[in-house]
């Protein structure tokens, strides 16, 4: 199975956000960019979810309430008999989306760091559970070596 063009758009976006979060979150200047890292962690994970939902024809959630995307991903895992453990990271990230983006209350840097860790764990789970998003570059007619 190869990755569809639409899914690839979301995967590329997800990975660009991920790389940006890693770059900005690299110490020592992480204190400067912590809120941006948190936001990128949330949006990279949402984009990865969209890539998966599109790839498996479940349809991307257009709702602003991204919790529905987490539900859809869980449903997809159930339908395919896959491990769902990674969805908890997505749920936690989505739960913090509004607070990280628009909330008036101070968010501690540790929370942004935790968000980055959750993003990493969510991506690891996604690649292991759905290898099609990890193995996107080979030509369809490439011969095994």
């Amino acid at each position, binding site marked *: 199975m190869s990755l569809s063009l639409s899914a690839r758009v979301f995967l590329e976006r997800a*990975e660009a956000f*991920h*790389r940006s979060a*890693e*770059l900005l979150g690299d110490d020592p200047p992480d204190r400067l960019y912590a809120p941006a890292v948190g936001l990128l962690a949330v949006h990279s994970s949402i984009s990865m979810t969209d890539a998966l939902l599109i790839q498996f024809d479940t349809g991307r959630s257009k709702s602003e309430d991204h919790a529905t995307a987490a539900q859809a991903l869980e449903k997809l895992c159930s339908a395919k008999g896959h491990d769902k453990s990674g969805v908890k990271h997505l749920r936690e990230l989505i739960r913090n989306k509004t607070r990280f983006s628009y909330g008036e209350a101070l968010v501690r840097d540790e929370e942004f760091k935790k968000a980055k860790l959750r993003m*990493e*764990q969510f*991506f*690891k789970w996604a*690649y*292991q559970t759905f*290898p099609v*998003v*990890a*193995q*996107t*570059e*080979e*030509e369809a007619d*490439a*011969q*095994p*070596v």
Partner: protein
Amino acid sequence: MPSQYELRAREPVYRCLIRRLVVPRIYFNAAWPRNDSDSYDVVAIDRDGQGDAHIVQVRENAADALTQVDNLLNTRAPYRWIAFRRGTEDEQSALALVSQSSLYAPGTAGRVGVIEIVDMAGGDLGANVRVSAERFPGAFYALSTAFSGSHNADVQY
């Protein structure tokens, strides 16, 4: 046996590579793709060990690094790199790096990438991509999955 500098350079080299990768697994002095294969100073496998493998040979000077290219061209990995200390190029290696022709395999796509190791303030080492590696064609994902499934990573997220 690798010099102290070459051993130290492995860290900046992998840090340079991970800027391009997502949750990679990093292996040092790794026999790629199997235990009976040649060993490489740094092997980085993208996407938690499921994706593209990047293999790197690190040498202190440019001429020594360039001698590794022939072997790299015959290796089974989508991305292949050499790394050396900036400023160590002699005339011949400088010309080879300008022309880049030795970095390509005849009759196929793909280019061996070049990473420069930089001496920074305070004695720290950094690394930058001088020539980007281009993907060699082939079906390599099964090698990545088998390798990451049978080897413990030195650096992992």
